[in-house]
């Protein structure tokens, strides 16, 4: 565990020193929050979709931010694998679990920090726009923990399997899918039909749905608990798969 902590510290420093992580993990979601709020404020009450009300938008913004944590996790892993850095590390007493935890921990710290900033920003926006955010916004952290781990797991899988160029590419596809089908920028339940069915097949949908319900203070089984269970299951599956793939790949590298 000590080596995982040291390796994670190095990964965290490398991520924090990349200006692109600030632009994408923080700047972009916050800009979207402001833009969507302006759009929402410009539409007469009752004429536009509810999804852009700050109470609903916050969940989408947080999940949108997490998709970039996935991207940067994948870049970090793929970059290390692409060069000789991991070769050097493989020749040290580090174990595969040290590497896996070393990649997961810093990404998780960034995801939590990102969520804190998004929630604080949402509260400020809500105060300015006389929005509908209450103290239950803090409950948003409950589904965000498994959601963050799920996205980090996806990032680890992409970084393990793909090259430095391929990993960000596939993550961009996931980011687009999450945006379109995850209930971030529109509510699939309002469209119904095939759109809703496809959305329900995506784990992102459940991240946004459970977070949105938690922020609204709706802890009912259908709105919060069921999607939360799905997210937890997906997070566990993604992390187990990521761990197994990394170990397999490491074994193959050392064959």
């Amino acid at each position: 565990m000590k080596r995982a902590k040291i390796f994670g510290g190095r990964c965290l420093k490398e991520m924090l020193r990349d200006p692109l992580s600030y632009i994408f993990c923080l700047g972009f979601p916050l800009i979207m929050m402001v833009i969507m709020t302006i759009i929402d404020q410009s539409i007469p009450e009752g004429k536009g979709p509810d999804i852009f009300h700050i109470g609903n938008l916050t969940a989408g913004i947080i999940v949108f931010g997490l998709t970039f944590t996935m991207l940067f996790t994948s870049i970090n892993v793929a970059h290390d694998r692409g060069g000789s850095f991991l070769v050097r590390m493989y020749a040290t007493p580090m174990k595969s679990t040290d590497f896996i935890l070393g990649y997961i921990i810093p990404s998780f710290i960034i995801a939590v920090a990102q969520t804190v900033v998004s929630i604080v920003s949402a509260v400020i926006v809500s105060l300015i726009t006389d929005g509908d955010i209450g103290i239950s916004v803090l409950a948003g952290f409950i589904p965000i923990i498994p959601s963050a781990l799920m996205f980090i797991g996806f990032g680890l899988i992409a970084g393990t399997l793909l090259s430095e160029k391929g990993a960000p590419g596939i993550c961009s596809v996931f980011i687009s899918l999450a945006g379109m089908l995850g209930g971030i920028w529109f509510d699939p339940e309002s469209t119904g039909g095939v759109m809703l069915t496809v959305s329900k097949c995506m784990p992102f949908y459940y991240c946004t749905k459970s977070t949105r319900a938690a922020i609204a203070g709706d802890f009912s089984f259908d709105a919060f608990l069921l999607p939360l269970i799905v997210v937890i299951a997906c997070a566990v599956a993604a992390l187990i798969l990521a761990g197994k793939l990394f170990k397999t790949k490491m074994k193959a590298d050392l064959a």
Partner: protein
Amino acid sequence: MFAVEARGLVKKYKTKTAVKGLDLSVEEGELFALLGVNGAGKTTTIRMLCCLSTPTEGEGFICGNSVLSQQDEVKRIIGISPQDTAVADKLTVRENLIFMAGIQGFEGEKKADAVEKMIKIFKMQDCADQKAASLSGGWKRKLSIAMALIGEPKVLFLDEPTLGLDVLARRELWKVIKELKSRITIILTTHYMEEAEALADRIAVMVNGELKAVGTLAELEALTGQTGLENAFVAIAEGGDEV
């Protein structure tokens, strides 16, 4: 007990045998050069001895520890500077060294002392707080070797340490390697004749995965009847003599 020993090491890939039954032994404190053209099997040999690649056949030992069955022990007593400069680009020189010392299990004062020692040995005081990404090729190589050395290994593997460096950076690095000689066992791979000539106590010539000759420069010259390592190397590579 030898610092490094290989007994019948073989590495086969699907269509190619990269190393063919390599036997060698390196004494403690020796600087041993593995010389060969590209694709001769030098890096594969080093990878097997560093537990980075599993031999298809044969066995390797580092200070008596098997690279097959005692990998944890082997990894505790070796340091490697890979062919490409394996440093964390966004960390400073000092942070890279602190990181590596931590991974090697150093803590507190011991860690701080080890870092300062490396900075001093490699004369990196002026660039200690500079990010690795902004260093020149020569300084990156120095940092890479310092990172390999910081764990106080008994055996240091340097894989093509001066590849791609200009002549001044190469000479500077040679000076550092010479200073390390006899304090530590060094296995160095290179395809620069003058590098092996300038640094090595003994030289092994690898051709197409086979160890064709091992000896001091004088022994290789005597074996081939040639003067200078380059001529001796060409004679060995083309003739297939063995000592």
